[in-house]
């Protein structure tokens, strides 16, 4: 039942000194931890954007701009085809794939015809316009204005043969997986899209 660990505290003068020292040590520890966690209540989100189709450009940009409206610290790390979202020219010509999408109102055998991606893309673009949905370009400009850090993975920039000057002004280049991981480790929300 009784052991040294849970023995009643000796109320003698020496113990009071010990307790004071312990309380002080704990206060310092709490203060250090507060500083280390830098908890000013600001949430943080990291999104990894890997896809470069019209439909897949929206989720990361919508979440990023909305999170910025919440006052969150947001990084979107674009890699592989996700780079096309940040590519000034390509971002305006993102395509929707008609093949392999069961939601398309056509069988795959028809969807595989050479012009069907363009048809599907035009249909989607028309719907986007009619619905008052922002364009990819608008969402990128908005996100950048709101302080979202849109990062373009350096390794895939080189792999895809892109030039850093081809991306929107304000896009962060010269970053890699370590930069993304560093932000992810401290983020409250991490998403791979």
């Amino acid at each position, binding site marked *: 039942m009784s052991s040294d660990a849970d023995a009643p505290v000796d109320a003698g003068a020496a113990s009071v000194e010990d307790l004071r020292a312990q309380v002080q040590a704990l206060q310092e520890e709490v203060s250090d931890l507060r500083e280390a966690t830098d908890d000013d*209540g600001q949430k943080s989100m990291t999104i990894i954007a890997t896809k470069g189709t019209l439909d897949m450009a929206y989720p990361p940009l*919508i979440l990023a*701009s*909305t999170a*910025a*409206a*919440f*006052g969150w610290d947001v990084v979107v790390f674009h890699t592989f085809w996700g780079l096309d979202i940040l590519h000034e020219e390509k971002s305006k010509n993102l395509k929707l794939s008609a093949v392999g999408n069961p939601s398309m109102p056509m069988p795959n055998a028809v969807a595989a015809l050479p012009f069907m991606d363009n048809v599907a893309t035009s249909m989607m673009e028309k719907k986007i316009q009619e*619905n*008052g*949905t*922002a364009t990819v370009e608008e*969402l990128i400009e*908005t996100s950048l204005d*709101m302080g979202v850090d849109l990062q373009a993975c350096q390794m895939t920039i080189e792999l895809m043969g892109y030039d850093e000057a081809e991306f929107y002004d304000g896009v962060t280049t010269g970053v890699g997986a370590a930069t993304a991981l560093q932000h992810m480790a401290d983020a409250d929300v991490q998403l791979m899209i």
Partner: protein
Amino acid sequence: MSTYEPTETLDVKGLSCPMPVVKTRGAVDDLESGEILQVVATDSGSMSDLKGWADSTDGVSMLDQEEAEEDGDAVFRHLIQKE
């Protein structure tokens, strides 16, 4: 709704997610403390989205929300105060 007098009005009619929230953020940033922003939207999702945004964002509070009709279309009005 009539008990509050908005300082500014933000018209986001015709815009859909995420623009009503994103533009509201920008408009609230331009307000002084205590001032009230009226947001008028046609996006029905704005009822839940702007409430959620206001509830989890420091320094703003949602005073009132209502659905009304304007020229035969449903509009959603939100009154947000900067604290």
